[in-house]
């Protein structure tokens, strides 16, 4: 394959995931009244970053 699709997809989700984690960390907590009081940015950001990381690792292997 000419370009391994796992690299750009992995990179994208790592960046988006980490940004969400950072935003969940510093952002105004009152906005989580939307999401039943759960800091969905922090938690789902971690899931996305982990997924991105796994793809990057698979592409490197």
């Amino acid at each position, binding site marked *: 394959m000419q*370009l391994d*699709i796992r690299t750009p997809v992995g990179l994208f*989700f790592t960046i*988006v995931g980490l940004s969400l984690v950072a935003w969940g960390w510093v952002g105004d907590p009152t906005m989580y009244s*939307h999401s*039943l009081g759960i800091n*969905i940015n922090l938690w*789902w*950001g971690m899931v996305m970053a982990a997924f991105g990381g796994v793809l990057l690792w698979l592409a490197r292997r």
Partner: protein
Amino acid sequence: MKLGTIDWAIMGLYFAFVLGIGFALRRYMKTTTDFFLSGRSIPAWVAGLAFISANLGAQEVMGMAASGAKYGIMTSHFYWIGAIPAMVFLAIFMMPFYYGSRARSVPEYLKLRFDEKTRGLNAITFALMTVLSSGISMYAMGLLLNLLLGWSFTLSVWLCALIVLLYITMGGLTSAIYNEVLQFFMIVFGFLPLVLLGLHDVGGWEGLKAGLATVSTERGFASGAFSQSWAHMGSPADNPMGVEWFGMAMGLGFVLSFGYWCTDFLTVQRAMAADSMASARRAPLIAAFPKMLFPLLVILPGMIAIVLHQRAVANGFMLPSKADGSLNYDLTMPMMLAHYFPQGMLGVGITALLASFMAGMAGNVTAFNTVFTYDIYQAYIRRDASDAHYLRVGRLATVGGIGASVAAAYLATRFNNIMDMLQLVFAFVNAPLFATFLLGMFWKRTTGHAAFTGLILGTLGAAVHHGLTLPLGSLVGIKGGWLAVVHHYPSEMAQNFWTAIWAWSTSFVATLLISLVTQPRPEAQLRGLVYSLTDRTVVAASEPWWRRPVVLAMLVLACTVLLNLVFR
């Protein structure tokens, strides 16, 4: 809906990656095989994910959520008796002919199997339909972005058209497929937390069922009508969709789904780009696993929304109403995103919607430029030019196709009814296709004259059936009955299914009868094109058992049966 800096940043990053992928692939696009078929080099899992995404336009995502709110879990029939069995059939029985014949497109297969006129008819109707459907979806996108983001219609349409244009002309089909993979994960990661939050909110599956029971009884159905997919299908009056099991199984499960998944070049093209016959057959099966779980992602939000709506006092969530007082379900998905997502995740959710619009458009455009170049330009305009010439034509066809889609989108802003009418005509054209392919692939006696006439008669059959019937409570006109009303269907859905059944049967019988009185092609010309004349030992015996298509297919079917049983 108020988007913050982080939301715009995520959207901007997505656009940057989409264009970056196209740019990175630009230098690999040297021949038409690279541009239109990805050099037949795509691994099975990539082809499989692209296979799902290509069909997963935003209209599908938003439409399924809307149906989930309107009809409840019965919407899952579009997946569990619709798409999945058809995808298995494509993988096991039809891919060997598409991929094995080395045809470069579905119309080209028709040329190899039947004759020039059948190919021409299919190529021209397909090219027209893809351009116009892409225009219709662009129109829907323009309206949605205008509503959600406050962008003007013109800005939304031109921006998305420009991005799709850039990445397709640069990276061809590979670019479309790669971006479809990105889009697939974007949709999963954008909508999964919505489902989790929603389910948590209504008290899990049990809480949802209890809520849906109230919704059902309020509408005069048995309490399980919104949460059981099969139990209330004995009579159309018992379920919110207004269909009975036979019309559902035959119309949707057999004619419409097989017709769409097995003959539409838009999706088949993804599997044809695979790196080997085994991968091409595995692609639809790999696609089937996530596809069977998609109801959880796109239908459940609708079901949760209707429960929230019904309990509006407690949470403030209300679906909007139309002018006539009935509920407007179309915006269910974006409304749920706005209800549950804070800034940050909201950007991910909106980008997922945007991604599905663009990928749907890109799917149409790549199918269009291939069919236009190979089956119209090379077949009828200029036969013996160099490969470089056809590559240029392909890029120009991309520009032309997108231009025509934009024009269609603007046309739709002025004449909304014309678009409804066009979609109706597409349905008439598509319904008989599967009869032609089925007979062509599995009966060597089928002739080109018969296929051609069968397609035309089937389309006429669909039109006549539509013209003679009317759903209850509708006015004569675009909804049917424009010849005379001889039968009333309980719902529009039931009428659609039966129109398809009539079209398919007309085409099947006509093709069969005409084949018997016309001259078949000599068997030597049909090797590799017809089931009984093809060597079926193509599957490499060295393949481990768990990668064999037949084993995967059994697994897919078993899981599907299980899902139907669990949610019956």
